[in-house]
């Protein structure tokens, strides 16, 4: 799966000769979502200033230019969400593209109950979870990771009365958070992302990941304490400098 996105890379973005899309414009190259007939939209919309709702509606009618605009608007956020889950650029890129393909195919299911961006992040998160499950089947987690699963040392660590993020510059904090996220195990990171970024409740996370609510709570607790510990480490480094 990871190779599909990078095969035959053409940095100019040109569609090669012989491709089903080669003889068509980007405007009418794809079938309407849910296998309808090809749509040849003759009306020109102002895509750049149109709200997401309008772009979704036009996309649902088979307008690929409107869909391209949606991709352009939200691609970074979708990619960033995949990246924070997978910690691997190639996989994140592949899964983010896969999410857009799925979105195109399922556009008819989007009824606007949430924002388009929220709907899209749900799709990419689900794809990431599927990928993580597949990978877990292939490789067992190391003993160190299993130790972390049980809570490691942070669980017994005394609570400090200092704010772990105090005095950190915005960019420094972002960098440190990113590093710290990379130091968590997949299982802890997943729960943390689903709760903090996706805003899911414990029971929703439990259902999505296939674990008990108690495990969600302990993984979340451990992940947050570990994050606090890593951020404090930076504070101390700064004080010593």
């Amino acid at each position, binding site marked *: 799966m990871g190779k599909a996105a990078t095969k035959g890379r053409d940095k100019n973005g040109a569609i090669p000769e012989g491709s089903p899309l080669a003889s068509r414009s980007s405007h009418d190259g*794809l079938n309407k979502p849910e296998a309808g007939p090809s749509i040849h939209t003759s009306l020109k919309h102002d895509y750049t200033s149109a709200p997401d709702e309008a772009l979704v509606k036009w996309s649902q009618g088979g307008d690929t230019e409107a869909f391209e605009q949606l991709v352009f608007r939200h691609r970074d956020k979708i990619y960033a969400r995949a990246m924070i889950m997978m910690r691997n650029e190639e996989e994140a890129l592949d899964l983010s*593209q*896969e999410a857009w*393909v799925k979105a195109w195919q399922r556009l008819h299911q989007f009824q606007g109950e949430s924002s388009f961006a929220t709907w899209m992040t749900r799709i990419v998160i689900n794809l990431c979870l599927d990928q993580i499950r597949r990978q877990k089947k292939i490789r067992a987690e190391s003993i160190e990771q299993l130790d972390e699963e049980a809570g490691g040392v942070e669980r017994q660590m005394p609570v*400090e009365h200092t*704010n772990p993020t105090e005095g950190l510059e915005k960019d420094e904090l972002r960098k440190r958070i990113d590093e710290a996220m990379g130091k968590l195990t997949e299982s802890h990171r997943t729960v943390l992302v689903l709760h903090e*970024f996706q805003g899911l409740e414990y029971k929703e996370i439990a259902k999505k990941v296939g674990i008990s609510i108690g495990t969600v709570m*302990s993984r*979340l607790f451990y992940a947050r304490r570990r994050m606090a510990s890593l951020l404090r480490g930076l504070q101390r480094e700064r004080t010593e400098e």
Partner: protein
Amino acid sequence: MTQTNMKLEQALEVQALLDGQLEAGRKAEVERLVQDDAGAAALVAELQSVSHALRTHESPLAVPDSREFYWSQIQRRIAAEEVVRDRSRSSGSILGWIRWLAPALGVAAVAAILAMRGGSPTTLADSSVMTFRSDADAITIHWLN
């Protein structure tokens, strides 16, 4: 304010209180713990600051490819999946026809064989024919006696 060594269960309840996920029956007691115990209060502050930092400092990553290239990759994948879907649809419809035609062809074949063997008009009613048909496996079997 005192400070006790909290048990893990208590710490998880403090966290649940912070997340608004604590069951109503436990809320008053855990709130009292946070109010009276310095350790519990410090834990709330720590969890809150981490949570706030995560929500407000998500890494602003950008797709490393150009807009055109990224979009062209998505177009290719959509087109490829549509080709696969169209193929499976057309092969599915052929299979559907075969599934319905198979019994009729089977009966016709039996009738033809019987006609050739007997040299005289023979109807299926004169013979003992047993038929087994499985839609799931798309097969029809005829036994002739």
